[in-house]
């Protein structure tokens, strides 16, 4: 029976691998998600019917109630959440995985017999190490994700909170964690377990508060990775193949996404983690050097006229587009343009938005076909041939000073070459700087027309003017 269970766990681990593999293309992606669901159902059924059937009516009832409560909350959230809130949702979900890891470890600590890892007061050393790793990473993931959620959801300012000597505090907490793990192993006192949890919870808060709103794509990917490592840690404790495989898949997935996001910003991972970069709003009102330079402003009618007479338009969406929920208006504009014979394409910067792939989901929601949406490296050379670049809610990712000014805070960051288009239509609320607090010389270029206003309102006005 034990072998059958182990085999079934292995199969569900493989199904999870297939679930990620299918995401290589939108056509195979839905089937991939089904593989994931089957894998999960198999893992749960194996646990309930073969590996460790719940004892007595009480156990069964407890599990059914738990699944019922959690499942209905989850299903309701999944149905109702607006696509613009995906970053917050994912952050919130990460926190749940972290906390669940803490609870499972606590369960194992109080009844090690049930998990076959020893008896209370004499848990195997290896299991204790794995368990404390799982609980520490889980607790960091929990509070870290709660902070990330609050920042993304606007419940907390996105501005970095910099405590004095925060690096020393974090190092101290880290050292304390290692010390307490060794004490937990030698004394097996459950108090140490809870002190480890407390220290890790504090560490999670302290690690994320200094990181600014603009760096959230990295943070959210990193927490994704942590939640995986926490699961893998618990997987070692339980000796469960499905958990170990999944934990490592998720851990490496998050790590790769963090790397892609860092590369998209030309920032080192360490410098992002140390924090302090970029706030929620334009920080210190950038140098001011060019404020007196002339800016060409335009109206919705001007923009409509220019685009309808263009041969090709490339649309560049950014975070402001998500905040304004402008995706449906934008697609409508794209449709009218396509009907009048204009080629319309969408250009996505890797760090546009607050999480990896955020813009793609919003465009998909608005029924923009995915084969009209291009990544930075695939479309950047086309701006030179484009008649119009329509920049909506993006700023820093189009800033040419990343290429020209070596002293710019974003120097070296890959940017979209929108300034090469014949005309740049730049939709923006005001002439303020972007998240990184950097002025964008694009505003003052001859071929740029600023469309000042809310992204959604402006796009709707343009659509009206096109009739």
């Amino acid at each position, binding site marked *: 029976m034990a072998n059958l269970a182990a085999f079934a766990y292995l199969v569900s681990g493989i199904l999870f691998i297939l679930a990620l593999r299918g995401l290589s293309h939108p056509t195979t992606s839905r089937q991939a998600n089904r593989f994931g669901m089957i894998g999960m159902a198999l893992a749960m059924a194996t*646990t309930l019917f073969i590996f460790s*059937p719940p004892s007595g009516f009480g156990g069964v009832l407890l599990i059914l109630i*738990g699944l019922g409560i959690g499942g209905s909350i989850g299903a309701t959230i999944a149905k109702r959440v607006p696509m613009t809130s995906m970053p917050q949702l994912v952050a919130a979900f990460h926190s749940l995985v972290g906390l669940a890891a803490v609870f499972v470890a606590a369960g194992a600590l109080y009844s090690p017999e049930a998990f076959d890892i020893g*008896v209370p007061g004499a848990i195997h050393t290896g299991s204790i190490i794995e368990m404390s790793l799982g609980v520490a990473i889980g607790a960091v993931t929990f509070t870290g994700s709660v902070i990330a959620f609050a920042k993304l959801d606007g419940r907390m300012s996105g501005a970095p909170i910099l405590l004095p000597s925060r690096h020393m505090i974090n190092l101290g907490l880290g050292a304390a964690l290692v010390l307490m793990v060794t004490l937990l192993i030698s004394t097996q006192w459950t108090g140490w377990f809870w002190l480890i949890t407390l220290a890790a919870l504090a560490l999670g808060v302290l690690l994320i508060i200094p990181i600014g709103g603009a760096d959230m794509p990295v943070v959210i990917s990193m927490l994704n990775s942590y939640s995986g490592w926490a699961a893998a840690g*618990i997987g070692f404790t339980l000796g*469960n*193949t499905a*958990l170990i495989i999944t934990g490592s898949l998720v851990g490496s997935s998050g790590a790769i996404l963090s790397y892609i996001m860092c590369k998209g910003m030309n920032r080192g991972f360490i410098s992002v983690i140390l924090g302090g970069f970029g706030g929620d709003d334009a920080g210190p009102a950038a140098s001011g050097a060019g404020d007196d330079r002339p800016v060409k402003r335009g109206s919705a009618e001007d923009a409509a006229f220019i685009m309808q007479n263009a041969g090709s338009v490339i649309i560049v969406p950014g975070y402001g587009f998500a905040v304004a929920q402008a995706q449906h208006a934008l697609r409508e504009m794209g449709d009218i343009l396509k009907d009048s014979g204009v080629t319309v394409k969408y250009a996505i910067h890797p760090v546009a938005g607050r999480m990896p*792939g955020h813009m793609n989901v919003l465009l998909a929601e608005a029924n923009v076909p*995915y084969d009209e949406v291009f990544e930075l490296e695939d479309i950047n050379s086309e701006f030179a041939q484009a008649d119009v670049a329509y920049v909506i809610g993006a700023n820093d990712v189009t800033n040419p000073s990343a290429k020209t000014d070596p002293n710019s805070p974003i120097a070296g960051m890959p940017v979209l070459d929108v300034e090469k288009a014949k005309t740049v239509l730049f939709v923006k609320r005001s002439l303020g700087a972007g998240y990184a607090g950097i002025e964008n010389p694009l505003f003052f270029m001859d071929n740029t027309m600023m469309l000042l206003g809310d992204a959604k309102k402006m796009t709707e006005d343009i659509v009206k003017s096109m009739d």
Partner: protein
Amino acid sequence: MSALDELRDAAERAAEATADLARIATEIAANAPEAADAAGHGAAAATGIDPFMFRLAIFALACFVGYYVVWSVTPALHTPLMSVTNAISSVIVVGALVAAGADLDAGATWTTRIFGFLGVILASVNIFGGFLVTERMLAMYKKKD
């Protein structure tokens, strides 16, 4: 003491010896599976490999699989990738299920069951929420018609 008595005495002793023998045989038979099991463990111990090493091997290989698989994910699907990895990492629910259904007669406590129960709730929010929201997102990705 007659020869007959001696004979009876010897017969009784032989009977006792036979009974003893039978009892030992039964015991050996009863313990045979355990003995075999112990021998098996002995064999595993003899190779000197802790089960931890097998888990570590799975972990290391799965990290590599994850590395290659995730690089092949198209950037357009990075958000669904995050939500689906989130859903599958909730397979941690297996630990919560074991804890919630732990056998009280075998020494488990209600503390464990409550922790398991809370774990089951949290993980199932994630399982249902994660897979369903991924499904919702993926259904939106359409090709040009």
